[in-house]
């Protein structure tokens, strides 16, 4: 089956100790790789929505595994807020999202947001942890700032809310 390579766990791979020595790579290495990922996907799709969808899927795969590795970001996000309109919505916002730092959007792509990749990661993490949700990324223009903030909107599924109420 395609793409199974990363989830097959043979005993020898599991026995390998989690590498502690090297935990970081340069930011630019990641930026280059990410930009190629976006560019490649651009050639495969016809419109922005599809491009975002593909990035989200890629991010999802990352997220599912990130949880498995018990990874955590060194920098906490700028803020976590609860949405005012709906009970089931939460927002994480970041002034300069890592993936958007080195990417500029050409005019004809308008509303496209590479944060879709990060939204996918968050969705993957939440799903694997047992908190299914719909996760999307949005640009929020801010007064007096050149670049808009990026907000990740998390809308939890019904069953999560019901469960929380029961545990309440």
């Amino acid at each position, binding site marked *: 089956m395609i793409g199974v390579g990363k989830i097959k766990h043979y005993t020898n791979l599991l026995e390998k100790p989690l590498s502690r020595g090297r935990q*970081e790579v340069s930011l630019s290495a990641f930026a280059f790789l990410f930009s*190629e990922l976006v560019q*490649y996907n651009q050639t495969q799709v016809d419109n922005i929505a599809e491009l975002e969808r593909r990035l989200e899927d890629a991010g999802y*795969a990352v997220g599912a*595994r990130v949880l498995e*590795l018990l990874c955590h970001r060194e920098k906490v996000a700028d803020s976590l807020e609860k949405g005012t309109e709906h009970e089931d919505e939460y927002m994480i916002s970041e002034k300069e999202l890592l993936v958007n730092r080195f990417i500029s959007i050409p005019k004809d792509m308008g509303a496209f947001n590479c944060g879709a990749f990060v939204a996918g990661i968050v969705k993957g993490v939440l799903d694997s942890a047992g908190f299914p949700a719909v996760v999307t990324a949005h640009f929020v223009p801010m007064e007096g700032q050149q670049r808009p903030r990026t907000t990740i909107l998390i809308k939890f599924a019904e069953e999560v809310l019901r469960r929380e109420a029961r545990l309440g």
Partner: protein
Amino acid sequence: MAPLAPKTGDAVFASIDHVNAELFTLTYGAMVRQLLTDLEEVEEVNKQLDQMYVGYNIGVRLIDEFLAKSNVSRCVDFKETADVIAKVGFKMFLGVTASVTNWDAEGTSFSLVLEDNPLVDFVELPDTFQGLHYCNILSGVIRGALEMVSMKTEVTWVRDMLHGDDAYELRVKLLKQIPEEYPYKDDE
């Protein structure tokens, strides 16, 4: 103003921003998976990673950053180039050093050996994809970067840990030096 001394690989790596290596590894994995799903043929994927998009494209842009951040002066010969790639280049971007071995008699071909490779943490190749050069992006990057500094090279895989070998070995062969061409003439 006196020229800045070239920085060692460690010094450069320490001075730049970092990102969690696992994020990097997983993003690369997601990319390879997408390619496999779209292209289906292992050989096609190998080619994309190296030639067409990915690797080569990254290489031609990476070299700018490399030269800017590391302050290396012009390499005297190919041997120096090899050392610089292994010690400074790899360290600066991937946080690991490679070693240079197996120079051929004319000094135009060498091997880069990597024991530690952040691209392949937690990766195993299933049987159906044994022909896949998972790290082919590296050969494209090296080729693209060297071409931007006037060296046309051929980069091939000799050893691959995902295929059961004990290390990653890339063979880099200098095909020819391209003299720098300026896009305009002085008298126009």
